[in-house]
């Protein structure tokens, strides 16, 4: 809260700290929503600029992350309304290569991850948003309701359907992956 107050006063150091603290999470959320790196980066800075401009309006009624993702939610929906970004394949970065895995096992794992990405990306924006916020950002269902401006029960319902679709999609991806390996 203090950091946001400092940002409201025009403190660029506070803004940098805030930016670095939330940049990765914000980018991931937007990447899942718009499914494109360039657009996600652009939107990340759009959201951060809104933080800079609107920090004075933040009253501390929610966590800063909830406020931040609320802005990002609206930015992402606007972007999706404006144009539907093309689904990009997952860019595997191999940031943490597991030395215990051999090349074949690593390939299998990359393939599985790509399958998960395709499955998650195939969900509707509302569903993948709930999945992403719950499973990666560790958001409570109340925070998610606040971010997307919906009742709590709507969030639970969305998660119910998202889980069901994701189960099917993941099963399909697994079978495809197994067929590819066996062939």
């Amino acid at each position, binding site marked *: 809260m203090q950091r946001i107050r400092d940002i409201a006063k025009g403190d660029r150091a506070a803004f940098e700290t805030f930016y670095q603290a939330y940049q990765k999470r914000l980018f*991931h959320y937007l990447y899942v929503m718009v499914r494109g790196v360039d657009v996600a980066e652009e939107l990340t800075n759009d959201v951060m600029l809104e933080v800079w401009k609107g920090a004075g309006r933040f009253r501390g009624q929610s966590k800063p992350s909830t406020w931040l993702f609320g802005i990002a939610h609206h930015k992402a929906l606007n972007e999706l309304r404006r144009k539907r970004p093309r689904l990009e394949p997952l860019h595997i970065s191999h940031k943490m290569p597991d030395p215990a895995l051999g090349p074949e096992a690593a390939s299998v794992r990359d393939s599985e991850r790509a399958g998960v990405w395709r499955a998650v990306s195939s969900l509707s924006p509302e569903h993948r948003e709930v999945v992403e916020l719950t499973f990666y950002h560790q958001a409570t269902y109340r925070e998610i309701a606040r971010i997307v401006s919906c009742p709590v029960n709507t969030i639970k319902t969305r998660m119910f359907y998202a889980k069901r679709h994701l189960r099917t999609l993941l099963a399909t991806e697994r079978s495809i992956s197994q067929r590819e390996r066996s062939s």
Partner: protein
Amino acid sequence: MNHLQIAGLLPWYVNGTLEPEERRAVEEELASCRECAAQADELKVMRAAVADCNEQFPEPSPFLFSRALSRVAEHERGKAAEKETLHGWWRRQIPVVASIILAVPLVFITAFAAVIAARSFYTQDAVVSKNAVEPVSVEYVKSSGPRAAQPQTAPDVVAQLAPASRTAAQIARTGQVALFVRHVEPAIRSLYAIAQRSGGDVVGLQDDVPSEPAARHTAEATLSVPAPRFNSTLRAAAGLGKLISETVQAENETGQIIDYRARLDNARRTEADIRQIMDRSGNIDQVLAAESELSSVRQQIEQLSAELNDAQHAVSYSTISVDLSSEAAAAGSQPPLSAQLGDAWAAARRAASAVSVALAAVVLWLVAFAPYIAALGLIAALVWLARRRRNLTA
């Protein structure tokens, strides 16, 4: 909390964000419900897969923050420029607004003054043109009869005076002034103007234009003005030139008017008596004698009425005789250049005086209407500013 409600909480049990009592309820359910436990396991796998997938997401550009800073700086510059533009705009408007504030009253004042001055000159020109067609080389008496001589320009003055004259002292005043003037013609024109301003008229004029250049130009004008304006008119007439003599006479006509009225009433009663005698008498000689007497009485009544009217008019309207004589013999038909310049200077002073009065009047009008003018100016400025801001925002 029932099974379905607990099942709905499982995703957040898996991500570890439930409240303690919710968590306890879920854990109790998981211990007793195999289906819920299976769902929880499935959700853990999903969560791990999604989290693992996220960990493999591409990193944002290392220059993303510098780009963000650039946008922040750009935003700040835009804000400063907007503020500066607005301030600069206001600064630029100061001379414009000041010019408008000064120009609007000046335009009003000039227009109003021009109208006043034009009206003033028009009136003067009308007098001059009226006099220009009148013959000045022959004796000219406008009217000699009291009824015809009564100016038609101030009937209201007579009406106001008539009732008062019955009760107050009936004074008939006459005045004579003799003047040396530089030029007789302009002085005559001024006399016409003075008489009209006083609610009277020039009822007689004798203008003797000299036949020889060495002779003096003389004129005699008779003014008839309402009695209350006698003094002011006399002063104005005397101011036209160098005063040679001034005479004021006042005659108390009260006794004479009362006498006229008494005699008139008596004559009317006599007329009525004769009529009765004529009605009663059957003798033709007596009727003829009465008829002759009646005719004489009626003549007397008419005469008395006329004399009474004359006396009353003499009281209501004062007569001023003005003798004008040129200071020097006329050198030619055209007045000298210095005289023309003097006349022009006098006309210019009169016009300047009229314009000054008009300016003062306009200033007073502007002061009186200042709140309205200020309100209109404020509204116009706000509209202008709003449009300017909209353009800047755009």
